[in-house]
């Protein structure tokens, strides 16, 4: 897939049981971009990512990836189409070794052929993972687990990676390093959609961003324009 594509989230409504989580939400991500979703806790950022990933299904509206409807598909089918997620809380497999965690990332057919190549790429981005190749995932530190989760998402050779709150629980210096790697991944051709608690970092790393509030998009645009907006300044203070 080296031609242009778009991820089109079109007026979706999402419910968790009786709770209306997303209201008429639309957003767009184009190939090659780094886009972020900004908002307070509970504003629906993670729900949006999970819906794209097929973990939840919208009751209204549609999601299209490269012209193909994905909103009714199962998660594992969406992965096969080229979208991968670094989930909130990392969720690496604790009783598999680092190497096994990475290998299982290339489970899909499209990824298995390039497994060795991908592994080399992940190791060059995160050398510490190669050092700890045979250690069980559960024994790694928080930062290392986050690297493993990112590496694992890369192994499926995706077009688009959804990053969900990768800074949670980590020291700023480690978060800096992680985001530098995200930039590098993007420069190598992987499109990035990320959710980040820290508004300043969000606008620093993204080219474009959407601001979410109570399950709706209230603003969207280029990161530099957004920095001046009232809503964003409010978000800085968690208002």
């Amino acid at each position: 897939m080296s031609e242009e594509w778009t991820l089109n989230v079109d007026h979706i409504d999402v419910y968790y049981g009786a709770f209306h989580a997303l209201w008429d939400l639309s957003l767009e991500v184009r190939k090659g971009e780094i886009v972020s979703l900004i908002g307070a806790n509970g504003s629906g950022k993670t729900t949006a990512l999970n819906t794209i990933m097929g973990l939840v299904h919208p009751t209204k509206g549609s999601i299209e990836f490269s012209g193909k409807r994905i909103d009714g598909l199962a998660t594992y089918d969406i992965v096969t189409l080229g979208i991968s997620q670094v989930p909130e809380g990392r969720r690496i497999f604790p009783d598999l070794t680092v190497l096994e965690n990475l290998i299982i990332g290339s489970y899909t057919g499209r990824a298995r052929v390039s497994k060795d190549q991908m592994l080399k790429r992940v190791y060059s981005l995160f050398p510490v993972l190669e050092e700890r190749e045979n250690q069980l995932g559960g024994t790694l530190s928080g930062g290392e687990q986050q690297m493993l989760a990112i590496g694992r998402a890369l192994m499926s050779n995706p077009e688009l990676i959804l990053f969900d709150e990768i800074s949670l629980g980590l020291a700023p210096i480690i978060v800096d390093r992680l985001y530098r790697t995200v930039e590098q991944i993007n420069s190598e051709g992987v499109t990035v959609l990320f959710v980040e608690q820290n508004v300043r970092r969000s606008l620093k790393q993204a080219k474009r961003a959407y601001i979410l509030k109570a399950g709706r998009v209230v603003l969207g645009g280029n990161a530099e324009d957004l920095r001046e907006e009232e809503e964003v300044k409010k978000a800085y203070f968690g208002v």
Partner: protein
Amino acid sequence: MMGLLLGGLYAVIGLGLSLVFGVMKLVNLAHGDLAVFSSYFAYVAMSSLGIDPVASLVLGIPILFAIGFAIQGLLMNRVFRLGMEPPLLIAFGISIILQNIYLALWTPLSRGLTTGYALESYRIGEFYIPLVYLLDFVAALLVMLFLREFLRKTYLGRAIRAASQDWRAAQLMGINTNRIYALTFGISMMFAAIAGVFVGLTFPFTPSSGSAYLIIAFGVVIIGGLGSILGTFIGGVVLGVAQILSGAYFGAGWQLFLGYVIILAILTARPQGIFGRR
């Protein structure tokens, strides 16, 4: 010595149960009865077609795999995330249905897979070792080796392990978890098929033998611990040795006694089993 060999057989009986519980947290109460299916299948193959029981596994294994795949795929996959009770009830139901089918088709008369070699014994030093016990043990070792390599070296094996640790994350890897679970149940049934034939070669069986073998399977898993193939083997051996010793010291009727005592002790002192993880 005999206990050791018998232990191998018990380990195979326990392996299938352990696999399903370890991966899906599902207690397959019908495990013993499904193994007995294989015994009866081999019996029919032998008595009407003259096919050797072990040879009948060529068909028996795929058939039982398909049955297992169907049970998980069609029945269990719908309910097993709702809690432990629904799958328990389904399995219990299957167990009752099977036992009654066996009763209807083959009467309560005990049957055995009496092939020529099933009655042979070897003399090693002072002991007489029945040939079947040796066969049981070799089969057990092969089965366990196969499972270990499968789980470690193949994509499917790793997918099963991943799905058992975090099914959401497994889906994010592109793994169809429902299909993986059906496959796991199918594999568990393959082991049940093998267990059924070798049990049938070693002991006589009746329609209700499934319950007895289920208890052995439980004992093996409790003693050896979940999530460990080595543990299942050790559990089997402990139970096997216990049975032989118990029979020797207390008399034939007390065979299972020592085994039960050990099970109780493990449950009290170390409930996760000798090699158990979670």
